[in-house]
């Protein structure tokens, strides 16, 4: 699903966020990216979302080299990706239902289809009863579930999450992780950046540890192997 080859991202003079990074994430896999702050986890997600471009190396997603995509191809590529952020990025002046259907509306999906899918994903995250509430009326856990529902709206093949439990307590974090596991069980490739090693241990999936832009450890489930 995702292959990076000798990927480097440079910020400023000699300050590498990623350096010679080569990783592979298979289709339908659930992988954690971990490491301390500044390790390069969020940078890799930004490169995968094409919010930024690498300085060197290449990224292949679903057989497409991201460097060769035209503007319209980038739009098409992004429609196949769901994303979840630590700060939820919900639009405060829109209701829950509007926040979710918005992502389908702006890619031109018919209104009836938008509503049908929005109800479906809201039901799936168990918040259909809060569809008319505004984000500020929801708890942190509820907001993150809405954010996940929004990420699922366009039925993505790949789901990227950047510290999705960073603002949540341990119980809620596990609840959110269970949602990601269910999403993954449906065939969606999931890549989550988190510094919470305890959570990774509890979920028990493959993890890639970065430090200063390089891979320092690759672990399969509970069995940890130092790179």
């Amino acid at each position, binding site marked *: 699903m995702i292959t990076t080859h000798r990927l480097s991202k440079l910020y400023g003079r000699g300050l590498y966020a990623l350096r010679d990074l080569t990783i592979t994430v298979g289709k339908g896999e659930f992988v954690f990216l971990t490491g301390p702050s500044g390790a390069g986890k969020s940078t890799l997600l930004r490169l995968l*979302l094409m*919010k930024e471009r690498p300085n060197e190396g290449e990224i292949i997603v679903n057989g497409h080299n991201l460097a060769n995509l035209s*503007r*319209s191809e*980038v*739009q*098409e*590529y*992004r*429609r196949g*990706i769901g*994303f979840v952020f630590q700060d939820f*990025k919900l*639009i405060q002046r829109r209701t829950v239902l509007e926040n979710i259907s*918005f*992502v389908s*509306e*702006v*890619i*031109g999906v*018919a209104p009836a289809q938008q509503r049908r899918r929005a109800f479906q994903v809201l039901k799936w995250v168990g918040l259909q009863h809060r569809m008319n509430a505004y984000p500020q009326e929801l708890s942190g856990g509820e907001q993150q579930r809405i954010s996940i529902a929004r990420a699922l709206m*366009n039925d993505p093949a790949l789901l990227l999450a950047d510290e999705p439990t960073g603002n949540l307590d341990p119980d809620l974090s596990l609840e959110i992780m269970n949602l990601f596991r269910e999403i993954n069980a449906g065939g969606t490739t999931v890549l989550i950046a988190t510094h919470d090693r305890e959570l990774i241990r509890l979920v028990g999936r493959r993890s890639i540890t970065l430090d200063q832009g390089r891979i320092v450890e690759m672990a399969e489930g509970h069995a940890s192997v130092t790179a």
Partner: protein
Amino acid sequence: MRAIDYAFRQGWASLRRGGGSTLFAVVAIALAMSVLGGLLLVTWNVERLLARWTTSAEFSVYLRDDATSEQRGVIEGLVDQSGAAAGREYVSKEQALVRFRSEFAELASTAAGIGDNPFPASIEVRMQAAAETDGRADALLKKVATLPGVADVRYDRAWLAKVGAGLDALRRAGGVLALLMAMAAAVTVAAVVRLGLHARREELEIMQLVGASLAFIRGPFVAEGLLQGGFGAIAAVLLLWGGFTVASASWGPQLTAALEGVDPQFLPARFCALLVAGGMLVGGAGGFAASRHAV
């Protein structure tokens, strides 16, 4: 189609959220369009007067006192065959004197003291409006002036040309002023739309991340500019109409007299529509410029 629908729904919502800043942009466009509309109103009415003068244009062929009836016949024949004249009338010396006495009654006593009738006979030729522009009037004039029996030819078009040129200059100066004001209005619209854009920064980021097309991302800002421009221009038309109504009610007879009997008229619907379209264009340009910061 969905992108257009989305753009106008969001543009309208943003317009309503804008409050005071939106009002500011609408007023800026209204001012620019009022200047342009006022100029159109003045030139439109003066042009109607000019058109009347042009259609009633005449030239006079003054005959020598010793001109024979054959010579007069040749002149009249040339005028008739030219195809440039809409009609002609022979004014004898006696008729010219009678006309002078009736038109200038206060000078009638002066004319009475003159022994011989000093007024020459003439042929007054009414020209076709088309002959003015295609040069046939000038050609006829030159031919007639060389014919025997002709003392003088008066074709006083220079002043009409001067009025026309003055009107053109007014139109150009007003056009430049309106253009400058329109540019200032577009900049104002752009600034106001950009304020809304900053408020929607997070929404725009999400739109880009989910793969929204440029039409969805930038469209609402262009639509907001179009709406601001349209409302500003409608306000300008209403303002002009109000001003025109008040002026007509207060100084109607004086205005009609100033226009030599031509009743002043408000801009025709097509000009009003053009003003609204112009306002929308100015607003849309401002919105488009602002939307470039959305991606």
